[in-house]
């Protein structure tokens, strides 16, 4: 789960969505804060103006006695939760609906609460000396305090849903575009692993840029496939065109052979020439077969192949040949039947190439084992020997067409055996691994 979240976070659309949400909320919050400040300020100014006006009204009184009476009278009508009046006469008497005594003059924010319900919350007070006494008018700031609640509510009912909607919309879009990007990614993977027919299926719902990338990828894959196809066509055309002349050479040599005794010098030379022609023919044969396997055409007639039987037959076919080279060949085949959908001849050719490689590249007295098993539901074929093996850095190269290790330059073989093996394995959707058998080589094929 965390891994999936981490992966989601790393994807560009998700980052963009989150960034946009963050930007949007910041701007909204700033706007809200600014209008709060402006509104609060104008409320405050209004209260101050009211206070100035109140004070000016009292200033109009002729003396302290009149102020005291005026305060007394007005405070009787006033609601103490809104306005509090206080006049302290020069003689120290207090008039009004609350006593506020201050050392300094001017505006103050005062709290009058102290257990009396009628004085509610915070007030803004203006204190001024008047006729030797001290006059203070205080007006409630409840309106301003209320403003905060109002703005908080605005924040809750407008910004939060917006953020949530934007966030989930962003995530949805991000996941959608991630899916589309994944489609392109999978196609590229398929192309890389050799499936040149892989294409991005662009659906109309895709974003324009992704559609463009998708069709560009398809264009590239198409060009690549056409080129590979052309190369394959050219090489199989060459192989084809050369087969008829080779056939003719073989025919002429055969003709000669019928009239030449085997044991003369000419006869021996002729036999060598015939052998060479057969070798050339087998290289062409292998090249054409690899081309056909790589083009995937044998897939059309795949059928169920009994691998147990195939392994046993091949071991039986090769056992005397191995014994003639003083090598021991045996197979380990499970009792349970293992079948695979495939081409029996190609699978047989594949195993035969592996067995022949093992026999060819190991010395007398070596042991070769053909093992069939099932690992995690998949058939596994292994050919192991205890010969010299292949150095680790050369293991990739031996799968290359016509590649031969320096050590095996002088043993027979055309360097195409393992290429065909790899082609057959790929055709059947399997994997091939060349491993160290310590000592020797272990070829593991997972179908």
């Amino acid at each position, binding site marked *: 789960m965390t891994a999936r979240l981490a992966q989601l976070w790393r994807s560009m659309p998700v980052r963009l969505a989150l960034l946009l949400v963050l930007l949007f909320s910041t701007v909204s919050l700033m706007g809200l804060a600014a209008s709060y400040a402006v509104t609060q300020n104008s409320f405050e100014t209004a209260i101050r103006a009211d206070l100035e006006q109140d004070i000016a009204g009292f200033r109009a009184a002729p003396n302290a006695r009149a102020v005291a009476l005026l305060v007394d009278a007005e405070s009787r009508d006033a609601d103490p939760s809104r306005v509090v009046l206080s006049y302290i006469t020069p003689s120290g008497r207090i008039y009004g609906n609350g006593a506020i005594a201050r050392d300094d003059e001017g505006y103050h924010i005062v709290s009058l609460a102290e257990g009396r319900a009628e004085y509610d919350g915070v007030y803004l007070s203006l204190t001024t000396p008047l006729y030797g006494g001290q006059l203070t008018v205080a007006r409630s700031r409840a309106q301003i305090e209320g403003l905060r609640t109002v703005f908080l509510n605005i924040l809750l009912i407008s910004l939060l849903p917006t953020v949530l909607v934007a966030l989930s919309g962003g995530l949805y879009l991000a996941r959608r575009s991630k899916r589309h990007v994944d489609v392109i990614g999978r196609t590229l993977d398929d192309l890389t692993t050799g499936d040149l027919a892989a294409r991005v299926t662009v659906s109309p719902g895709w974003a324009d840029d992704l559609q463009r990338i998708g069709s560009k990828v398809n264009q590239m894959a198409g060009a690549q496939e056409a080129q590979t196809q052309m190369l394959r066509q050219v090489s199989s055309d060459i192989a084809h065109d050369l087969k008829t002349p080779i056939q003719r050479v073989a*025919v002429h040599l055969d003709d000669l052979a019928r009239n030449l005794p085997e044991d003369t010098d000419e006869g021996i030379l002729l036999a060598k020439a015939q052998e060479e022609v057969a070798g050339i023919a087998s290289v062409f044969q292998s090249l054409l077969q690899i081309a056909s396997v790589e083009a995937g055409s044998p897939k059309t007639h795949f059928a169920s192949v009994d691998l147990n039987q195939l392994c046993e037959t091949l071991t039986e076919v090769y056992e005397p040949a191995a014994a003639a080279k003083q090598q021991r060949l045996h197979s380990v085949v499970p009792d349970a039947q293992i079948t695979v959908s495939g081409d029996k001849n190609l699978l047989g050719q594949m195993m035969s190439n592996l067995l022949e490689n093992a026999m060819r590249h190991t010395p007398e007295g070596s042991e070769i084992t053909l093992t069939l098993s099932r690992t995690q539901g998949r058939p596994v074929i292994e050919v192991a020997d205890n010969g010299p093996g292949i150095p680790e850095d050369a293991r990739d190269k031996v799968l290359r067409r016509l590649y031969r290790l320096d050590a095996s330059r002088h043993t027979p073989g055309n360097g195409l055996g393992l290429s065909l093996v790899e082609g057959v394995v790929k055709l059947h959707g399997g994997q091939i691994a060349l491993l160290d058998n310590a000592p020797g080589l272990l070829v593991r094929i997972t179908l």
Partner: protein
Amino acid sequence: MKLLVVEDDATTGTYIARGLREEGHTVDLVAEGREGLIQATSGAYDVLIVDRMLPEIDGLTLVKTLRGAGNLTPVLFLTAMGSVDDRISGLNAGGDDYLVKPFAFGELSARVTALARRPQAMEQETVLRAGDLEMQLITRKVTRAGQEIDLLPREFALLEHLLRRKGRVQTRTMLLEAVWDISFDPMTNVVETHISRLRAKVDKPFDRELIQTVRGAGYRIDG
């Protein structure tokens, strides 16, 4: 036997025709598909040897048309192709056997003979004989000059195959197909090693060799 060769490459066609004539067959050689089809439908041939790639009408179409018209003459396809695919499409079209160029003449000759004799291969025999060798098919006992020979199942099958086709050459690929059901070509000569094991049991202890090697072709048991 009367044979028809449909092959557009003159060198190969002449060579096949001459070789088969030397073996005592009557051979008609035709270089293109349309003429081949006309010849095949008119003449009574024992085996048709048809190249896959021909001008006018290609080999596959030729054989399909023949089969469609109810002509069941055995057909041996020749081809420069030779992938498994081609082999299968050839056999599906109604071909009976398949030979990939370049081939040795011995292989061609052996396969043509095998095709012509196909129907008789189903004979219900219980004992096969060659010289002083006797094979009991029911009890699966093999004796030579009254001496019992112990054979492994596959050695028995190999000997049986050669005995049933007494006097006819069986090539290595034919033996691989018949005895082991393998129709790909191993590079190593595995058949030779099996034959030499069989010889060690069947021929070595006795003074006359029954299993003959035919140079450039394969093996044969003489009567």
